[in-house]
């Protein structure tokens, strides 16, 4: 059994985009805040902090999910994928990112990191989705700029349709 007192900071070590990293977290530290403030990885955005907007979506142990509803201490030893892991080391965008670029699928970019991570996992499970399936998946994200149409097109393009 693991017990961590309210004011006790525990070392949390996890793998983010293939690299082992670690920092300290008290029990109530959200995984989003751990990524941003302990690991200085600002790619994952914090929106509503109650699971509704989808901006903080990342891939944890191969599951696309909200990182604002997880505590860092729950994730010790886990494997994370965040938006920082999508492009090549030299900055070359991957196919999904290129499709977003080409279709104007973002404007302010606040929601984009979460949508990219959802779409990454979604396309891995369902490489040739229908338009309806993409729209259904996107219902878990809020974008206030694009009206979604360009995002749908970008994901369909990345899915090869």
């Amino acid at each position, binding site marked *: *059994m*693991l*017990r*961590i*007192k*309210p*004011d006790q900071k525990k070392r949390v070590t996890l793998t983010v985009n293939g690299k082992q990293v670690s920092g300290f977290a*008290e*029990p*109530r530290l*959200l995984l989003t*805040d751990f990524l941003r403030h302990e690991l200085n990885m600002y790619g994952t955005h914090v929106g509503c*902090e*109650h*699971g*509704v907007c*989808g901006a903080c*979506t990342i891939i944890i142990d191969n*599951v*696309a*999910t*909200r990182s*604002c*509803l*997880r*505590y860092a*201490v*729950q994730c010790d030893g886990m494997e994370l994928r965040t938006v920082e892991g999508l492009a090549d080391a030299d900055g070359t965008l991957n196919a999904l990112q290129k499709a977003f670029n080409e279709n104007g699928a973002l404007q302010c970019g606040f929601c984009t990191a979460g949508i990219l991570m*959802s779409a990454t996992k*979604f396309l891995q499970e369902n490489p040739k989705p229908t338009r309806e399936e993409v729209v*259904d*998946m996107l*219902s*878990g*994200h809020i974008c206030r700029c694009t009206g979604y149409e360009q995002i749908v097109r970008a994901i369909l393009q990345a899915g090869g349709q």
Partner: protein
Amino acid sequence: MKPVAFEYCRPDTMDEAMELLAEFGGDASVISGGLSLGAMLNMRLVRPAALIDINRLDDLADIRIGDATATTGALVRQAAAMNFPGVMSGVPLLAKALPWVGHYQTRSRGTLGGSVAHADPSAEIPLTLVTLGGAVKLQSPGGTREVPAREFFLGLLTTDRRADELVTSLVWPLRREKTGYAFEEIAQRHGDFAITAVAAEATVGNDGNIADLSFGLGGVEDRPIVADTAGFIGKPATQDTADEIANTVAEAVDPMIDMQANADYRRQLVRVLGARVLSAAFNDAKSAREAS
């Protein structure tokens, strides 16, 4: 919005979970997926002294299909249930309800048991369990018990679970012969909290009349309810009867009033969605009879 400081406890065994429940009782919150509880913690609507994280209790992630029931452990993720063929074919109403639960990114982590323990009055999983007449299994340091779903939900976010009890599994009656199932809801955005959700299980006899009926409503009163439809047993399973049942039930309910809808609107949804869902369940029952 950040939670209050709490002690984090992660049991590796059920015995350890029981020790923690005995120690903290109502001062602890049990977290599984955290899709509802995490939001309430962040908004400080709950302020527990300790969080008991049951995610390492792997036994609670089991699904067992028996002769008459399917049993899903409290930790079964909503997405896992959707990907489990025995659940989808064996419990058709759950199969029809799950796509309405949250979103792709929340069903991946949210659990069946967590939704039942949380007891949001508009939630689809509690409504489905109540409509089917399923049960909730609980364990405390003192032992185990099984509570019929229709007695488990007591009101808004309130259940029969005692402070030292853990929801361990849900019991779902399997598909019955000559029986049809339907589910529908209205929400502001697909996947959001239902303003009203409606579920039906209808058995239609060879004479084309209603032999048995369970008509469930979520988001209408402060808990999922099953409407009194006893007076309609034996009536023809037609659209006219569906309309009549929905209209009668809409007059009988005592709807909640909140920011999303007033009582009249919820009554109207019971009429419209109710007629649609009952009719769909009747047709589904007839198809099931013809297929058998």
